[in-house]
């Protein structure tokens, strides 16, 4: 028999795309298009693939939730408790292991170690200088960081800043911009003396207040993105990548030179706010899988996917626990059996709630068959007729 052309093979594969998921179709295309195949063997391959695929599907009633919970929970007993590890970047400590996993499932507002990975666009990514330039735009710099010394003169009620020109040059800040900044604060007259001196004349002669003003000046942001404390430039393969301690996705995306399609943060809520719930779902999967993989634990991604999908099912990130998924269950008994039993019962009675007994816990409590697995079957044989048939 003659061999099929590449186009024919692709066409044949396309024909079964309504049965097989896209990922397998893609794999088949890649792997088959360059092989010499007769029509018969192609058919045989496709039939076997379809057969095996259909045989490996989940069955209706499968308690996938419970399986997912077990599959993530069981290996977590083997995880290290040690919080800090150097994940990729030696310079930063990153929370990993069980604490990080709990953090992800808790849907905490801010992770204990927020971190960003920032990739740069074509223009900036190959040049170290240009990469550093972007880094400077991102790293927050306070006046405190760019001065050598500060003096308060209580007699003339003035504050003198002696600037560190070297650091300023390195960070790309000129003295005028600092002066402008201080002027905007409306403290008093600002005067530049010599090359590196900035004198601020205030009319306040109270020592305490003057001290406070000094502190305010010190903590004024000169440059950078709020929340990002430190930026480190590293060469990875053939491009320069920025790693940051602290995270602010919305602001970083606006910085010029950043490749907005590849920026990543480990703050899931930021991702949700900026990129939407689908992105947040992917971030949850990525973070949770990352922790598991780093610990060398083999967990199927489908379990993590289910957890992420449940957490994000109604458009906002919900915690796994009392203040999220479990607390919003419609069943009174299920909630009462989990945590804060009494409050749920009292509230249910006031609200006149009705427990429809659709979940697992409720049915365990009342001693009925649980509606998952083999308990999913609703149709029953009428016993009377069965008995009659037996007689006949």
């Amino acid at each position, binding site marked *: 028999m003659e061999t099929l052309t590449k186009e024919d093979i692709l066409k044949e594969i396309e024909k079964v795309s309504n049965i097989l998921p896209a990922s397998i179709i893609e794999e088949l295309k890649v792997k088959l298009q360059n092989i010499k195949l007769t029509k018969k063997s192609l058919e045989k391959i496709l039939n076997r693939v379809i057969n095996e695929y259909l*045989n490996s599907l989940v069955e209706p009633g499968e308690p996938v939730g419970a399986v997912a919970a*077990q599959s993530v929970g069981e290996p977590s*007993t083997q995880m290290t408790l040690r919080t800090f590890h150097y994940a990729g970047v030696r310079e930063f400590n990153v929370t990993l292991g069980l604490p990080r996993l*709990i953090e992800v499932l808790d849907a905490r507002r801010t992770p204990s170690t927020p971190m960003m990975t920032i990739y740069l666009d074509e223009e900036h990514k190959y040049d170290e200088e240009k990469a550093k330039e972007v880094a400077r735009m991102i790293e927050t710099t306070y006046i405190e960081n760019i001065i050598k010394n500060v003096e308060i003169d209580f007699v003339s009620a003035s504050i003198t800043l002696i600037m560190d020109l070297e650091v300023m040059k390195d960070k790309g800040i000129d003295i005028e911009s600092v002066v402008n900044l201080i002027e905007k604060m409306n403290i008093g007259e600002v005067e530049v003396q010599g090359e590196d001196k900035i004198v601020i004349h205030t009319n306040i002669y109270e020592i305490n207040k003057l001290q406070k003003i000094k502190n305010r000046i010190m903590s004024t942001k000169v440059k950078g993105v709020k929340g990002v404390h430190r930026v480190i430039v590293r060469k990875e393969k053939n491009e320069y990548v920025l790693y940051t301690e602290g995270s602010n996705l919305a602001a970083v995306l606006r910085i010029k030179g950043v490749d907005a399609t590849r920026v990543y943060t480990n703050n899931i809520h930021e991702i949700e706010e900026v990129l939407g719930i689908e992105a947040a779902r992917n971030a949850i999967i990525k973070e949770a899988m990352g922790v598991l993989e780093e610990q060398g634990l083999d967990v*199927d*991604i489908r379990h993590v996917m289910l957890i992420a999908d*449940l957490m994000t099912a109604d458009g906002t990130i919900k915690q796994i626990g009392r203040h999220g998924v479990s607390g919003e269950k419609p069943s009174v008994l299920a909630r009462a059996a989990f945590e804060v039993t009494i409050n749920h019962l009292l509230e249910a009675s006031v609200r006149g709630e009705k427990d429809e007994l659709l979940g697992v816990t409720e049915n365990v409590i009342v001693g009925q068959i649980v509606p998952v697995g083999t308990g999913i079957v609703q149709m029953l044989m009428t016993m009377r007729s069965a008995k009659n048939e037996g007689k006949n």
Partner: protein
Amino acid sequence: MESIIETYKKIKSIQFGLLSPDVIRKMSVAIISTPDTYDEDGWPIDGGLMDRRLGTIEPSQKCATCGNRMGECPGHFGHIELARPVIHVGFAKIIHQLLRATCRRCGRILLTQEEISNYKRIINEYSKRWPELLNDLYTKILSKCLKTKECPHCNEVQYKVKLEKPTTYYEETKEGVIRLSPIEIRARLERIPDEDLTLLGIDPKNSRPEWMVLTVLPVPPIAVRPSITLESGVRSEDDLTHKLVDIVRINERLKENIDAGAPQLIIEDLWELLQYHVNTYFDNEVSGIPPARHRSGRPLRTLTQRLKGKEGRFRSNLSGKRVDFSARTVISPDPNISINEVGVPEKIAKILTVPERVTPWNIEELRKLVLNGPFKHPGANYIIRPDGRRIDLRYPKDLSTIANNLAPGYIVERHIRDGDIVIFNRQPSLHRMSIMAHKVKVLPYKTFRLNLCVCPPYNADFDGDEMNLHVPQSEEARAEAAILMLVQEQILSPRYGGPIMGALQDYITGAYMLTRKETLLSKEEVCKLLYAAGYDGPLPPPIIREPKEMWSGKQIVSIFLPPDLNFEKKANICNKCDECKKEKCPYDAYVVIRKGKLISGVFDKKIIGAGQPESLLHEIIKKYGSEAAKKFMDQVFKLFLAYIDMHGFTIKMDDQSIPIETREVIKGVLKKTEEDTKEIIRAYKEGELQRLPGRTLEETFEMKMMEVLSNARDTAGKIAAEYLGLDNSAVIMAKTGARGNILNLTQMAAVIGQQSVRGERITRGYNNRTLPHFKWGDIGAAAKGFVYSSYKTGLNPLEFFFHSMGGREGLVDTAVRTSQSGYMQRRLMNALQDLKVEYDGTVRNASGKIIQFIYGEDGVHPAKSYHGKAIDVDKIIKEVLMEEG
């Protein structure tokens, strides 16, 4: 026969609500008005808390209300008519909200008519579409009400109502702060119209707010608060009864005082006291008031405490229940039984029973069992006659008449015997493989026996572990257990899509030694081995004929491989060379099976080990099913054990010793390290050390030191490992993955290395030093927990101390971790347990909300996947191309 047509009742829903005083009175069978329980003769007093009408808890008595005996009488409520109303503590907060949200004069909600109709519309809409949003809406409405200063309906000025915890309310009027009595509160709540309540999320049909102020108190039946009679004959009452006695006593005092026209002050005091007792009756842990105590000083366990927490009714008795037909004992290993079996001690087998219905087909057999009675093993403990009477076979003297009287329709509760399906479990039940079905194998002695291959799923070992066994009693339960839960059906773990069971420890060592190249077996040996595996077919032709017939180990293993099996994989002993020579691997580490014949490679952990996806075992179970995998594990694994038995395998002290020359080299390495560390310390002290970006100088120094020291151990280990070859038993175990690793070996033979606490060198102890044996500020290797000795040479006292510090950290870590991960798993389970795959392939929660449209984006079950991949496309292509030539 009645049982067949028994109607099957199902609870459809449970409605929650408050009991109105009327309902409480109606369901009550007795007014309780005497604070005493029993009279001098020990009889319950009528109208007392142990009134006979409330039900009986003594087996000999009949209930005065329903006439049933202990088992049947469900108990009946009584009630107490409170002389003055009291607040229900649990609702104090809601009452407070209601008082503030409604008008003090007309009782209307503090919203304009317009707002009312508007919100009603929204509530209507929400409850149809997004019921989960209602809660937030109610809080919003409430906060809006709280802002209103004047009633929009009757223009009455509203005052602030304050709640002083737990149950006292004050109103801050112009004239001053006035206390609101429960009577006043109840009157106000009564005035709130039904329709206004719905705006605050209260369902007036099931819970009128005035019912939260109690005028009658239900008295629970005696069955809820049973008294216990101690051996001495002294009766001890339940905590609830104690509390109720207090309530009745004060209530009666209050009533008398009111009737006698006592001064207001005294009445108020008593009223307050009544409120206290009712409060603690409901909840004895309310903040703000002292908990009511038992005479001994122990706080009473009242209603809230009974329900709450891990030991409370919900988690302890409703979500989890105690069962009959269960057994527990120590486990021990038995490599001779199948993985599907569990060895049950005869003693236990004589207690656990299975009900078997008598039919014409089994009547003879069951007669024999009945004749054997309850004390001889395959016997029976009870007979249930068709009329439902149960006969205990322990007592009748003549079992033969009972046996002869057996007829179809009788049920015999016979002892469990070989082949019965039972459920076996080891806590903590972290995943579904912690509870599996086994087939009974009745054995002597007193422990449960299990095949070693099922240790990984249960996470069991034999250092004193105990396990539980349950006997399913219905045909459905047995069928489900046998089809879904049987061990062989659980070999593939849904966690990662690979076999969780498989060879471990000696199995792996045995397999390796049998399959390695140099193993040649005489006919006698081959026969011994094959006999152990239960093989009775012909022998393959020997690979060596002269001078003596010899077979290779690979040949023997091949006998048991399916004839159409093809398999290729790198074994665990693979040296990870730069270029893999595949079949021609000099270490015989590349396994090739062609047409069921083991061509090259050895069997080790990667090939047959437990928890190894994409292994030979995985291949077999995927291609030939769980039955074949079970057979493989039952037969071939026995072969491996038989071989290691025959060959002998042990480790000895000598295995860990290395010759003096090698020791010298290691010493040299350590000396070199010593110098390196000194150099780093010098650089650090003189400020020459370059700070790493983002690190302090100290951190940099510590990182450098750790690096140098761990390198030292690694090189020392490598030198030692070079000397220890594959003829060393310990090395065999480490390399094949049977037990231990190379690190363990180097620690035994060469150097133990740096001990650490919290990932750092040991720093704690005295000021500026870890132990007084070091100089102040010593930051060298030895002073910070580097152990130069090996386990074989032994540690010096200082080293021993550091080592125990590291060891202790490990123990603490595990203890902390188990609690943390346990709670995480409980939360995960609770959040996810209702999710299931529906008939349309979607994943939904209990209320039918879609969580995923297709499970896992491709609908593939992880346990049926090939290590996460839906299917192994490569393999199929390869197979088909081979078949087609």
